[in-house]
């Protein structure tokens, strides 16, 4: 074709090349590298010995480490579940407000998500601290007894994760809810369904992909997280993220750290595929061809 910027023109590839090279060199290659690294042996004094082994992968499933893995999954799962319940309720409530107010409500629901992660986590230290606001509040209303430590607990980590990722769930649940035609739910009411039945049989199934997306993302971001356990968990227990961190920066066992990351990636890919299946089911299976 003679014209510039048209579909059979070869130039689009030229525009894409610099960015694609960048992603190739600084994302694809490094990720492939740690994939390979996961199958090398650890050197005696740290470093890497270039002989093939499955030991690192096997070590991930060693009870000592597998237990950490399961614990991380448990915390991530709990956080994701709580975030989904809260996030769905919030998204539903936003979608129920007059349409002209919705963009602003959504903007303020998401705003914290784009502010600094460390700062948001730190805010909970201020609240949960032994000298923190919650303890002070309890003293102020006259509670004299001993207060259980709230910071550096599993609960604190879960609160931190829910807090940090809730806006994302609100976003992902709001999208399908806002697209829902009120007439569909009205049709259910018209056919005799109660408000609760209508929600359970019509609204919820149609918006389940949003929840699935939210759950998967919170889970994935949580299981690999290392800032929140480090700051709110205070080193009381380890999660996968901390374990990976330790292999690279203190234990100096890169191959094992790489193997842990690979398992993390595998879990993430598995969940993403599951989410795609949920999304397809909810949209009524494969689409009929157009026309």
């Amino acid at each position: 074709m003679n014209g510039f910027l048209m579909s059979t023109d070869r130039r689009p590839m030229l525009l894409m090349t610099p960015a694609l090279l960048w992603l190739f060199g600084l994302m694809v290659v490094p990720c492939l590298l740690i994939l390979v690294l996961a199958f090398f042996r650890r050197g005696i004094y740290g470093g890497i010995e270039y002989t093939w082994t499955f030991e690192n992968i096997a070590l991930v499933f060693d009870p000592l480490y597998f237990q950490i893995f399961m614990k991380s999954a448990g915390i991530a799962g709990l956080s994701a579940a709580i975030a989904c319940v809260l996030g769905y309720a919030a998204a539903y409530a936003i979608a129920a407000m007059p349409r002209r107010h919705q963009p602003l409500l959504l903007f303020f629901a998401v705003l914290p998500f784009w502010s600094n992660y460390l700062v948001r986590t730190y805010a909970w230290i201020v609240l949960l601290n032994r000298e923190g606001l919650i303890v002070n509040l309890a003293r102020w209303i006259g509670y004299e007894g001993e207060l259980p430590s709230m910071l550096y607990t599993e609960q604190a980590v879960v609160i931190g994760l829910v807090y940090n990722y809730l806006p994302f769930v609100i976003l992902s649940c709001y999208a399908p809810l806002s697209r829902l035609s009120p007439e569909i739910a009205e049709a259910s009411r018209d056919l005799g369904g109660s408000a609760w039945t209508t929600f359970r049989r019509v609204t919820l199934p149609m918006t389940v992909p949003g929840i699935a997306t939210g759950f998967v993302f919170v889970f994935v971001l949580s299981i690999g997280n290392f800032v929140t356990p480090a700051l709110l968990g205070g080193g009381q227990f380890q999660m996968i993220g901390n374990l990976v961190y330790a292999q690279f920066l203190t234990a100096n066992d890169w191959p094992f750290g790489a193997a842990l990351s690979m398992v993390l990636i595998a879990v993430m890919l598995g969940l993403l595929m599951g989410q795609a299946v949920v999304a397809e089911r909810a949209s009524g299976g494969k689409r009929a061809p157009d026309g």
Partner: protein
Amino acid sequence: MSDAFLSIKDVNKTFGSVHAVDGVSLDIHENEFFALLGASGSGKTTLLRMLAGFEDLSGGDVVLEGASIAALPPNRRPVNLMFQSYALFPHMTVAQNIAYGLEMDRLPRAEITSRVAEILEVIQLGHLAKRKPDQLSGGQKQRVALARALVKRPKVLLLDEPLGALDKKLRSEMQLELKRLQHEFGITFIVVTHDQEEALVMADRIAIMRDGGLLQVGTPQDIYEAPETRFAADFIGVMNFLPVTAGDQGFVARDGSVILADRVNGTGGAIAAVRPERLVLGDRGQNTLRGTVTNTAYHGLDLLLHITTRLSDTPVIARMTAEMADHLRPEMGQEITLSWSAKDTHIFPA
């Protein structure tokens, strides 16, 4: 070739195995208002885009004033296109939109300013020069798009469904406006349209396209009065079709009557055709039909009668002036006799 201004020579366009344009040859004269008329998928827009330079030719040539332009990119052709969507630059004002093409030609600032002002006068939008496109009505956008293409004084102006997005009343105003501008600027216009009425009103000549090929080229009168194919007869205006069989005495209709016809196209005539306005009341012509009025449709100036006859499955349509209708007062269920002359009968093959 004689005096052809723009010559389209055996042009082909294939997309994969689809022949979008299939061996089209066409000569267009200087200062002509030419219409490419066809349904969607007929290849008319592809042909127009090839003239503008947005589609390569799979075969053939396009010659403008004796020189081939087929290999020139769009920005080097002395041809401009008015886009169906108008394609106005949303970030520029009306004046900036119009000036853009002149700036690309590196004309002096003063000349650009005066030419923009001049064309804004012509399209009567001088007061909106500083508006952005999304502050304009549909009709105003249409005129800006036209001005932006016209201001470059192209040798040929291509218009892709120029009035497609306008409402009916505005459309008929703009049909005359386009004709006036074409006359004033003395530029060759090639319009693509699917609206046969628009083509009849505006064009000096019309080419009917179907399946990537040309069906018939001629003046509006030629095409309306002497369609060469059944498709053209049906596509332009309203036409009654009566199935016939060719026999020794001539063409025999379903009820056994013989239909006399002066215009026989092709061989193996199988269908007779006559325009509604050629049917007259009573037994006054060479051909006669009888039937029952089953519907009447009032159109202001005239009245269309739907008459069920034994000659065809679909009702025959006859057109009466309002004056005649007042006099006659046709009623549903009324028996009626119509007739027409042999010179108004067209015969087409099956």
